[in-house]
């Protein structure tokens, strides 16, 4: 009897995980496009879970219902700029421009953090995101494949006047994660850690006083425009900013598997 209930308790986190759509990612050593002096570009990523898809309008609506301080109009401007959820018809009505299955956009970093914390999760770090995004359907690291780059660049070339596709339309990658490319930009926990100069051509020019202990950040793999653009985008943003093309998904440390309730 006790064993069965223990087994059932073990299942609960798994079921909850399936609901939220979490994919387990193995850790590993990995070559980042951000080549900081102290790491030489090699980054160790610990195993982590990542949501399979970006957070949708439906999911975000559920969050603001339960946490009214994050509704549009009530979230203070210091945490979310005035264009927060601008295209929703009302604070609790996403409306036709924000269908339930579309990724939620025009959310600030503070709001995304609050959402993830409410799921007992967090935003992924840049390294975790980069690690996950390197994969395609068959390989963990497809970045050297020009086809991978071209597919991503094709999205960057399309202006954002058109309506966003729904989440989950693109094929899952090797880890079972979808839509890391081709849908929306995504917040990461440490976007403010990208100590990148606004002028990309400063590579290797250490302005020592600007960033204390500044190690020169050079962007390795300059051919990988796809990732360079993502870095440029994230480093341009402040925590309260929102854009029409910026959403997020959550990450978490892997849950322990022995009989612990969620």
């Amino acid at each position, binding site marked *: 009897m006790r064993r069965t209930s223990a087994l059932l308790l073990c299942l609960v986190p798994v079921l909850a995980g399936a609901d939220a759509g979490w994919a387990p990612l193995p850790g590993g050593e990995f070559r980042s496009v951000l080549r*900081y002096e*102290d*790491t030489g570009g090699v980054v160790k990523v610990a195993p982590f879970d990542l949501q399979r898809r970006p957070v949708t309008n439906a999911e975000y609506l559920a969050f603001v219902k339960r946490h009214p301080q994050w509704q549009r109009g009530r979230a*203070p*401007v*210091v*945490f979310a700029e005035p264009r927060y959820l601008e295209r929703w018809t009302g604070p609790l009505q996403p409306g036709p421009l924000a269908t339930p299955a579309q990724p939620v956009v025009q959310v600030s*970093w*503070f709001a995304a*953090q609050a959402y993830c*914390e409410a799921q007992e999760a*967090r935003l992924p770090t840049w390294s975790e995101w980069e690690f996950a995004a390197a994969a395609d359907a068959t390989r963990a690291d497809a970045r050297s494949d020009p086809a991978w780059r071209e597919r991503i660049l094709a999205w960057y070339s399309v202006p954002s006047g058109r309506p966003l596709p729904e989440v989950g339309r693109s094929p899952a990658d090797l880890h079972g994660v979808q839509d890391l490319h081709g849908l929306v930009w995504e917040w990461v*926990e*440490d976007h*403010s*850690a*990208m*100590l990148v100069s606004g002028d990309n051509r400063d590579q290797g020019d250490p302005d020592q*006083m*600007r*960033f*204390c*202990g*500044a*190690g020169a950040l050079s962007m390795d793999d300059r051919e990988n425009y796809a990732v360079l653009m993502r870095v440029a985008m994230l480093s341009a943003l*402040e*925590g*309260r900013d929102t854009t029409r093309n910026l959403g997020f998904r959550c990450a978490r440390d892997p849950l322990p598997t022995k009989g612990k309730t969620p």
Partner: protein
Amino acid sequence: MMALRWRLVALLLLALPVPGLAATPLPGDSVYLLEDAFSDQSGKPFTLAERRGKPQVVAMFYTSCRYVCPLIVDSAKGVEHALSPAEREHLGILLVSLDPMRDDTAQLASVARKRKLDPSRWTLARTEAGTVRRVAALLGVRYRALADGEFNHSSALVLLDSEGRVVARTERLGPVPDPAFLAAVKAALATASSS
């Protein structure tokens, strides 16, 4: 019987909201809207909203930083020295550690002692790692942990008015204060004392 009734009345009085003490809501652009918990160099917990009412000069640092962080302390001291004693009384200085793992309360106290930082005006604070990221975002400070425990971080002094709104910032460090920043500090103090 009598004592109990008085105690009840006293309790009721305490329960009633006292006009004047009831806080008007913080403005939407106030940093003090962050409700997370901090603790200072004596271990006393506090929230940012408790600093309301006095303009603050805020910066982020960490105690094992050898390069710029001592300069941050010098810069804040420089601002202090440029004020009149009356002004100095009404300014708070808050330094938040980027490195709560290693900057425990004892460490903060040690730095405060070494640099002779008057605890009635200087607060050296630590908080949880997630909150550090949030405070940095609110103050516009960028930082990154290095493999060896050091940090890359942008260095700035940020001036908050008495309501916790960011009204000025400077990246010019050193004992001689940035004149524009100093002027902003004086202006904030003048506004605070007149209200």
